[in-house]
Every structure is written in structure tokens, then in C-alpha cells.
């Protein structure tokens, strides 16, 4: 690894160091550390890590999706409603249907943004209302369920921590790495750094954006299904979707994705969601009011972005 690569990865190294420190801290609080605890960690970060990855893709492409949490809630409600009492084969088929639905919702969002010329924040703010409304229409009350064997496949039976880790790593291997190496990946960084320059170099900006929002929607759908698998029910609430969206943006930004676009990757956000998971649990371990964790998370996000901005300006890379 040469110097330039080290420099490029410096953000990730910083986050990894933070994760290791917080991780050891958390583990030192626990009476014992085994597969049960690993599973708790993995399950704790899985939904939000997946959502952060989806958000990161969209932000790298120069956009933002404030309806991503709502998409996850929608898929959560859809899956909990239709998967209740089905056999494993049907459930797996339904999983693919819901993944398609999530991708489609993302694609439509991207299409509206490209077609209308309205700012992405505004479009996704409006669609977040729309999607939560649909979710509440499908599931007016929390409830529903999922096939137990499918839930075990997603969340793992009690001490088995492999499945959640697989679902964390698989999207990176199967979606992110091929994307990163494809023309679409290059186009993504191009439209994120300079949309006009990308357009003049022959990148189809609208199509690239639609594809990115579609893949972001796919991540949101995976996150929604995983939530169903972990909680075995649905929660059709607007505040859950808002919190999830905010955490996904915080995760992406903490993970080294610049809100200006064109900078970052998907490994950082996964690590960042570990950080965001450890802080409240460590505070809880001290017996501190979990409300303080909100303060720490918010302040940490601000501080990290501030620091990142200053560092980037110093190295002359904006």
C-alpha cells in the first residue's frame, strides 16, 4: 500500500481505531464475551448499517434521500403483513418480491428528482410522508409476523452469530464491490464530484441517478426485511422512519462520505454504525440515562464532520 492509498484510507483507519477502542470498552463492561454478545452486536447494527450503506451510495452520487427510513419502514410493514404464516419457500419468494418493490420505489424517487428538477431534499421529504402513509395503510397497528425458519436464517438462532454477520458482509461483496468496479461506479463518483463536467464527458446523469436511488432503495428494502426478521413484527410509525433516516445520514457522514458528493465508500458507514451502536450501549452500561447518548451521538457527528472539513481543507482536497 503506497502513501497515496494510505492517505485515501486515513478516514477509515481513524474510524477503525475508534471502533476498536469503543469495542474493547464495551466488552470490558460485559461479564463475559461470547457468541451471544457478538450476535447482539451484529443484530444491533444490521438494520442501520444497511440503511447507512444505501444512504452513502446516494450521497456519493451527489444526492440525499430523506425518505430512506420510510422505504425501510414500508418494506418492514409489507413483509410483516404478507409473510405471516407462510411456509419457507413462499417467504423466500416474497423476499425477492419485496427487494424488487424497494428497488422500484427507489428508482421512482430518483426518476421524479431527475424529471422534475426539484431539489432531492424536497422530493424525498414529500415521498417520506407518502411512503409512511402507505406503510400505515398496510399495517395500521404494529404486528404481523414472519416465517420462523426465515427469521432464523436472517437473525440466527440464539448463540449462532454467523447469519447476521453474513447479511452485513454479503451486500458489500455482492453489491458494493461489483458496483465500485463498474462503469456505474465511476459514473457515480463523477456525477457526485461535478455533475456538469460528468455530463459533458458523456455520463448520462439522470440515468445514473435513477440507478443509484434504485440501489439505495434495495439497501433500504434489505434493511426493512432484516428488521422484520429481528423484531418478528412491524412498526408503522413516522418517528421510527425519521430516526432511521437521520441515523443513516449520520452513519454515512461519520463513515467518511462527504455531503458534497464524490467522496467515500461503503465500508466506512458500516464501521460508523458500530460506533453509533457502541456509544449508547456503553453509556447504558455505566447506568447513565440513555438520553445522554443522543447528546453524544449528535455532538460526535458534528465534531467529526467539523474535523473532517478542516482536515480536507488542509490537505487541499475539498
Amino acid at each position, binding site marked *: 500500500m503506497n502513501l497515496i492509498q494510505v492517505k485515501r484510507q486515513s478516514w477509515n483507519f481513524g474510524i477503525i481505531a475508534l471502533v476498536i477502542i469503543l469495542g474493547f470498552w464495551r466488552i470490558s463492561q460485559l461479564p463475559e464475551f461470547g457468541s451471544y454478545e457478538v450476535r447482539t452486536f451484529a443484530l444491533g447494527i444490521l438494520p442501520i448499517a444497511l440503511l447507512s450503506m444505501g444512504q452513502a451510495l446516494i450521497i456519493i452520487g451527489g444526492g440525499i434521500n430523506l425518505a430512506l427510513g420510510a422505504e425501510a419502514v414500508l418494506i418492514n410493514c409489507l413483509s410483516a403483513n404478507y409473510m405471516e404464516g407462510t411456509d419457507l419457500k413462499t417467504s423466500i419468494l416474497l423476499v425477492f418480491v419485496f427487494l424488487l418493490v424497494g428497488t422500484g420505489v427507489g428508482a421512482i424517487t430518483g426518476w*421524479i428528482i431527475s424529471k422534475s428538477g*426539484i*431539489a432531492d431534499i*424536497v422530493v424525498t421529504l414529500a415521498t417520506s410522508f*407518502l411512503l409512511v402513509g402507505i*406503510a400505515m395503510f398496510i399495517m395500521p397497528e404494529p404486528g404481523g409476523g414472519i416465517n420462523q425458519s426465515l427469521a432464523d436464517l436472517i437473525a440466527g438462532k440464539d448463540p449462532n452469530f454467523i447469519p447476521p454477520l453474513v447479511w452485513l458482509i454479503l451486500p458489500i461483496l455482492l453489491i458494493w464491490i461489483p458496483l465500485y468496479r463498474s462503469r456505474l461506479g465511476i459514473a457515480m463518483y463523477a456525477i457526485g464530484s461535478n455533475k456538469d463536467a460528468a455530463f459533458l464527458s458523456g455520463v448520462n446523469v439522470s440515468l445514473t441517478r435513477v440507478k443509484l436511488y434504485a440501489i439505495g432503495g434495495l439497501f433500504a428494502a434489505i434493511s426493512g426485511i432484516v428488521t422484520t426478521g429481528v423484531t418478528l413484527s412491524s412498526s408503522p410509525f413516522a418517528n421510527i422512519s425519521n430516526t432511521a433516516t437521520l441515523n443513516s445520514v*449520520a452513519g454515512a457522514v461519520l463513515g467518511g462520505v462527504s455531503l*458534497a458528493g464524490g467522496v467515500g465508500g461503503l465500508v466506512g458507514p458500516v464501521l460508523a454504525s458500530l460506533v453509533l451502536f457502541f456509544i449508547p450501549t456503553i453509556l447504558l452500561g455505566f447506568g447513565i440515562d440513555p438520553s*445522554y447518548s443522543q447528546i453524544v451521538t449528535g455532538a460526535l457527528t458534528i465534531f467529526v*464532520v467539523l474535523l473532517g472539513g478542516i482536515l480536507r481543507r488542509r490537505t487541499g482536497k475539498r
Partner: protein
Amino acid sequence: MMNSIRNYATAKVSKSIWTLFGILIALFLVTSLIDPYFFSIPSIGTTLLLAAPLGLLAAGQTICMLTGGIDLSLAMIAAGAAFIVSVKSSDGLLIALFWAFLYCFVIGSINGLAIGLFGMNPLIMTLGMNAVLIGVFAVGVTTFLKGSSTVPDILVTASTAIFLFDPISWPVIIWAVIGGLFLFMLTRTGLGRLIYAIGDNAQAARLAGVKVWQVQWATYVICAILGGMGGIMLGGQSGAVAISLANSFLLPSVAAVVIGGTSIMGGIGSYTGTIMGTLILTVLSYLLATINSSEAVKQMIYGAIVLALAWTYAKISENS
């Protein structure tokens, strides 16, 4: 030069204001058809009364968006101000109001200075600030902000009571005065011009000698103080104060500004448009309440209409 800019900006805006006014009238007539009671003086009064706090919050959001920013901590600033007023009201009304607006000033300053001096992204800064404030007040309820959660009677009167005759109530008077001052500030003062200038092109404004950070500081402080006023009014209207008081007003405050034709990129827009947006959203929520639809259907229609209005607006301003 200044004059031509003003003419250009107002010509572009005034055409769409009439479109918005048409939409408002249409919406009003549709609501009256469904619920004949709506077509009466008292219910117009109620609509204006309910629109006032949103109008103040949206004013704060307008000024932020004109500079190319956004304030997502506005709901917590509003709820916090109402909270402080109700808790400190035992020390006397003026002292309570002093603490509340001091709080708004401090939070607005932190937002504005971080954005102006340190180049923070407004979205992340105010998002982070929102999380911090939620935490601070969640802790505060049980510790340093323990106390009464009822708003002083005089503020309840100022937020709900009728002024002289029927459709005009106290909050509407307050909204008219504050909104009038705000409109004057935006269109007729140097600060207002500078806000448009840095929203249009911050780099050019800086090179022309504008201290951009000072303008941004002022912007977020004004936004926070307007938010605080809106929040206290909301508290007065609901009687009791909770941390979640203004949560459901954050997205409408953004939506009202956007429907009113203010560009989220900054530099284009007006408070007159925001007032129209506020009234449209208030009549819309009344309409959705009369249809007696479920919360789910309400959310869907609300989202769809906001999107449709924004889209229509974008098309109109594209053609002009």
C-alpha cells in the same frame, strides 16, 4: 443595478404568488363544498389562528433556505423555548421569556457560527444539533428543567383569544406584526439584500466584501428566535408543553417554504410565497381532517399534494 435585481426577482416571484393564491382559493372552495361550515367567518378565524405558529416557523425556515441552508433543529428550538417559558413562568413572565429567547439566541448562534465560520454543512449541523437538543431536554425534564408544564395564562390568551372581532385573533395580530417586520427586513434592508446575495453566490458575495459568516450567524439567530416565538405560540395553543410539541411541524415548515417557491439552493424566493404555502398547508390539513380519513390516508395525500405542488411550481418557474 440593485433596482434591476429587485425587479427581476419580484417579477419572477409575483407571477407564481398569484398561482399559489389561486390554488389556495380552489382548496378553500373544495373544503367548503365538503364541509359547508368551513365557509364561515369563525372557521376562517380558526384557520388563520392555526396557521400562525406554522407561519412563524416557516419564516425562520425561509431565511435559512434563502442563504442556501436549512434548519432541521427548528422543531426542537421551538419546543425548547416553549418548555423553558412554562418551567420558568413561576419567576415571572418577562424573566421566563428572557430565558427562552436567550436559549434561542445561543442555539441559533452555535448553528450559525459553525456553519459560517467552520464551513459546516447546514444539514448535518442542524441534524446533529437536533439530536443534542432532544437529549438535553430529555435529561432536563427530570433534572434542571423540572417544573410546571403549563403555559402561563397570558400566553395562552395571546395564542388563542379573539382580538376585538371575530376572524382576527391575537396570534394572527402577532403573526402579522412579526411577519411584516420580517418581510420589511428581507426586502428593504441591507441584511435582507445580503441574505439573497450569499444565497445566490456566497463566493461572489465574499469577494465583494460581504462578511458571509456574520450574515449566516444573523440568519440562524433570526431563524431560532422566530422558531422560539412559533414554539411558544404552539405551547399556548396546546395548553401543556412536551418535548415532542413541535415535531410534527418540522416537515411542514420546510414544505410551506418550498411550496411558496423558495429555492432550497438559496437566493430565490419570498416570504409572501411562504405565507401562501402556510395557508395552503393549513387548509389542506383541515380538509384532510374533515374527510375523516385515517392517519395513513392523510399522510399519503399530504405527501402527494406537497410533491405535486412543488413539481407544478418548478414547471411554472421553468417556463417563465
